[in-house]
């Protein structure tokens, strides 16, 4: 299938991807944040954790469906990079919310999550496949089997050996050297662009309600840093 070489506007240019590892250095983060530090906006618009203390009405994410230009190309990427398996590809069916349009769906499964990802070719009434815009979601994230820092680091090495270049990471989303990038969540993560420039995170070791309490106790916000 012919695909259009479209790069969405939110994609990190290659030269910025080279600078991204510097976010693991505290001095670099301080440099980037110098203007809001000097104007004191940094202290009124704080980046902080608020904690997780009670259940919600939702248990988990069940499925994500993303538009792709070429199901075969995308399927191969997810199979080879991270071992998703093909469950089934369906015949064309009516688009659920656009009259006259059709979709064709390929259902992919992860090791512990059946049909978690749907690769969708969307066609207009003339039969032309849509080019994904990149502007509906910033990223979607898969937990790696084992769910630990060592698994994420091993995965980053495995991907590199297989010829896949991460656009960011591996990093840890907290302030702890050597991997911490000053963000929140505690997850160790690396990010890759799929063939349609969807940003896909592979992660593990995210903070939970249990280790959150163990680490911070009753401290909140800046008192934890």
């Amino acid at each position, binding site marked *: 299938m012919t695909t259009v070489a479209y790069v969405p*506007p939110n994609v990190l240019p290659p030269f910025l991807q080279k600078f991204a590892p510097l*976010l693991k250095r505290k001095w670099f983060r301080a440099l*980037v*944040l110098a203007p*809001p530090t000097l104007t004191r*906006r*940094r*202290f*009124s618009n*704080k*980046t*902080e*954790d*608020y*904690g*997780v203390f009670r259940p*919600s*009405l*939702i*248990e*988990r*994410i*069940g499925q*994500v469906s993303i*538009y792709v230009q070429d199901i075969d190309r995308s399927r191969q990427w997810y199979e080879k990079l991270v*071992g*998703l398996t093909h469950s089934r590809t369906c015949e064309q*069916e009516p688009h*659920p919310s656009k009259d006259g349009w059709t979709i064709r769906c390929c259902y992919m499964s992860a*090791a*512990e*999550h059946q*049909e978690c*990802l*749907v690769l*969708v070719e*969307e066609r207009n009434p003339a039969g032309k496949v849509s080019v*994904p815009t990149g*502007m*509906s*979601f*910033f990223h979607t*994230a*898969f*937990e*790696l*089997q*084992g769910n630990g820092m060592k698994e994420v680091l091993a995965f980053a090495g495995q991907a590199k050996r297989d010829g896949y270049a991460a656009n960011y990471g591996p990093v840890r989303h907290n302030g702890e050297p050597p991997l911490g*990038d*000053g*963000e*929140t*969540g505690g997850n160790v993560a690396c990010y890759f662009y799929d063939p*349609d420039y969807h940003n896909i*995170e592979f*992660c593990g070791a*995210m*903070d939970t*309600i249990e280790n*959150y309490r163990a680490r911070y106790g009753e401290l909140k916000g800046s008192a934890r840093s």
Partner: protein
Amino acid sequence: MTVHVPQKRIVAAKLQHHVIYVSDLQRSKDFYTRLFDLQFSALNHPDSSAAMRLAQMEMHFFSFGFYHHDICLVKHHKLRMDNGSMLHFSLVARDRLAFDAIRSRANQIGAPVRDGRLIASARTSPGQRAFCLRDPDNHWIEIIEEQGK
């Protein structure tokens, strides 16, 4: 003789979290917390997060109640979001009562609801309930009841 033992490949276990673009953080925050009881678990602001400053984004994190974040809402301060790269995402209700509560709240806030799975070819087990609605930015959300809960 050296025996080569192939290393076990690391594979994805499951979907963990999903980060969607929104056009109005407060409006979407109200929607997601009111409908699902999601907890606002963290804020990454471009005035105090170097990564957010470089990306020109602000990100609000929400938890289902165990992990630090499961759904994140992100506002890009320069680019405009659209519905052109994602068809939908689905959320599994904690149990039967939670499914009913979400449905009831959707009615209360006047959100139009469509019964069943969004994609006709999606698998449905016998007796499984599902419905779909759109968030304030027209992202399709599907709510699923898992059997036996």
